């Protein structure tokens, strides 16, 4: 939902935004402008809610220097989709087990929303959600990341997330001793 970065068109957007106060304009670190439903932004992000309430929203585009355009586009897309979706009853995690606290399960469209993201885009989105205090989006993205780890060995996890094994031999030995059971092989 990128508005545009061209000056003339941005001016146009500003006029539209002023006329229709249902939206706010956000500006990414690389200067792109995005328009988002004010109601959804305030409902889904504690940081944006604070800015709206505190009057620190800039009609020319509120600067979010920490968030790149791709991540901000996803944030805005998520908020606007959320504004249009019919909220279903909160679904509590189906996998209630002794060891994990119950979490709200993502809805079908939220699942699809994060499934289509590249690993990099997911990383940027979870950081943006964290920065903007978006609890629900954090739920959805963290759920996705946990799904990507489930059932995998340390090596497989490193491969999925492109992580370098930064342990020394001694440190690995220490882990082996502490978690001897995890290395059990019959």
């Amino acid at each position, binding site marked *: 939902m990128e508005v545009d970065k061209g000056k003339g068109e941005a001016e146009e957007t500003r006029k539209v935004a002023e006329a229709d106060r249902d939206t706010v304009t956000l500006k990414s670190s*690389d200067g792109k402008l995005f328009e988002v439903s004010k109601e959804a932004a305030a409902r889904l992000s504690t940081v944006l809610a604070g800015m709206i309430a505190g009057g620190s929203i800039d009609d020319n585009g509120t600067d979010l220097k920490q968030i790149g355009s791709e991540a901000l586009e996803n944030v805005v897309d998520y908020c606007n989709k959320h504004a249009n979706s019919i909220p279903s009853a909160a679904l509590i995690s189906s*996998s209630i*087990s*002794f*060891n*994990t*606290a119950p*979490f709200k399960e993502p809805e079908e469209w939220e699942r699809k929303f994060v499934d289509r993201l590249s*690993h*990099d885009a997911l*990383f*940027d989105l*979870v*950081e943006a959600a*964290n920065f903007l205090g978006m609890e629900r989006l*954090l739920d959805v993205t*963290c*759920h996705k*990341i*946990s799904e990507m*780890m*489930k*059932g*995998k*060995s*340390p090596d*497989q*996890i*490193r491969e999925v*997330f*492109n*992580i*370098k*094994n*930064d*342990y020394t031999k001694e*440190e690995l030995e220490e*882990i082996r001793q*502490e*978690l*001897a*059971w*995890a290395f*059990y092989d*019959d």
Partner: protein
Amino acid sequence: MAPPPPAPAARDWAALPSDIVLDVFLRLGPHEVMLGAEQACKPWRHVALEEPMLWRRVGLDEDYTDKRWIRCPCSVKQQMLRVAVDRAKGQCEAFKGNCYDGYLPHLVRRAPILRSLNIQHYSDYENGKRLVKALKKLTLLEDLEIYFKYSIDYEDWDKSMLQSICKACPRLKKLVLMYASATELECDEDEFDKEPVDGPIPVMRNLHTLKLYECELSCKGLNAIIDGCPRLETLLIDGYFNKRKMDENLKLKCARVKNLTLDTMKKPP
């Protein structure tokens, strides 16, 4: 339009903010974290070691069917629970697992604020003294389940187990005791003495659920339970009990227990 900027280098997942890593780990649960994620890189392991919150609930979980876990023998699984309890740095609130000889005092020291304790396999060649002494230290305990591996030895301990546990844990809301059974001990059913439940118990103001398996209940014992537990909603007795000996008064008292199950038979002569 300017060409899009070149794609930046792949993100460094090891540098994910630690509060996000914690959020993800909380969803994975202790087993998954230890088996995989925390071993992936140092920053992630740091979260596992330094966030006691991750280890508040620790236990053998029938629903966790990962084959890496399933193939471990019980004694090996037990090591995992110990490490997890220690990592909770005193904040463990729920434990479900086995307590072989001598582990219970250690558990109680490491997890003094337990609210829920489920001992799936209690074996202690000492008599019940050590158990009761340990339970006394868990002053916040609300939910207790114990499966006894051996018959309780009353040779030099003349108190009833039920009475002693009630005394040690007056705040309990739920208590489940499964006493040793003839089948498990592989002895003759007719010669096996089930755990007697016959005496008085202290007043248990908060107890709403009591389940006793493999016991021999008397009418006196049942009277004492009903009188001692004013909030009792669920009572399940499995073992020997002669329903025909109940008088009208006792039947009337029992009627106020919402879910009453006397899954019992008469003791064979």
